[in-house]
């Protein structure tokens, strides 16, 4: 799953995007004050995030450095990455734009 997100709860929230695969890793940069709660959400759009059931808040002791790395293993099976485009043929014109849609759950580029 490409859009796990971690929220380090301290004063407000610090959002950190995670790597896509299990185990989910989060690199916390800064100087958080203990205790810090850590939870992972699984979903595409932030407004519709659904808590992943596997994760209880994990209480961390004070993190001594500026950077620390947390590693957890999710019991949620990641959705395989996919990439589709539609349509597969377009006509282009100088005076106005043509469009094609990309359906994906991961990062992509155009060559």
């Amino acid at each position, binding site marked *: 799953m490409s*859009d796990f997100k971690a929220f380090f709860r301290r004063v407000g929230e610090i959002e950190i995007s995670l790597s896509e695969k299990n185990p989910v890793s989060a690199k916390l940069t800064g100087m958080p004050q203990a205790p810090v709660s850590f939870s992972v959400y699984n979903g595409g759009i932030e407004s519709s995030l659904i808590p992943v059931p596997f994760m209880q808040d994990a209480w961390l002791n004070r993190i001594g450095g500026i950077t620390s790395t947390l590693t957890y293993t999710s019991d949620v099976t990641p959705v395989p*990455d*996919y990439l589709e485009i539609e349509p*597969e043929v377009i006509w282009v*014109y100088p005076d106005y*734009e043509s*469009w*094609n849609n990309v359906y994906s759950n991961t990062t*992509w580029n155009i060559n």
Partner: protein
Amino acid sequence: MSYASWVSPNKVSGSGDDTVAWTGSPHTGRNSRTTTATFAASGVESKNLTIIQAGKSEFVEIDDTASVSKTGGTVTISGTSNSSKLTFSITGTDNIGLTLPATYLANSVSTNNGAAITGDPGATQQYNFSITFTGIAANTSVNSLTSQITVTTNNATTDTCTITQAAGDAYLTISPTTINLTAAGTAVNVSVSSNTSWTIS
């Protein structure tokens, strides 16, 4: 392999669902052109987007006007087209008395008037052409002269150029310049040679 430079997306990368807008640069060739853009992501099969741009309708544009000095000489008319052949003709009243040349330059290549252009450059993009009229005589009248040149494409699209030659200088000569009249007053002829109106005083 990447997509051709004549097409531009509004983004070259993204994450998740998205929409990509594509714009083509102006295409002046008659034939459509095609390129392929590849969408790629790590660990998944790439997807190809075929992008097509329609060709431009056959056209020809020639200088609207051209000028020749009163002393004559040469005049060159230029234009652009994407036709596979061009045919030049003198149309309407030809006051100047032009002689249609047998060849002209199409995409810098000498080409017979009305013949297929070598390599058909207009299939992929517009090309420049020019035609030069030589041996134009001096204008001996005090009025400007005009002639009209028409260029016709393979599908009969036309454009015209009006060539104007500047008015010549006025002249007036008489011969003889001295006459002797008899006592009886018999008439004596004097020849007048002129290209303009004249009076005797």
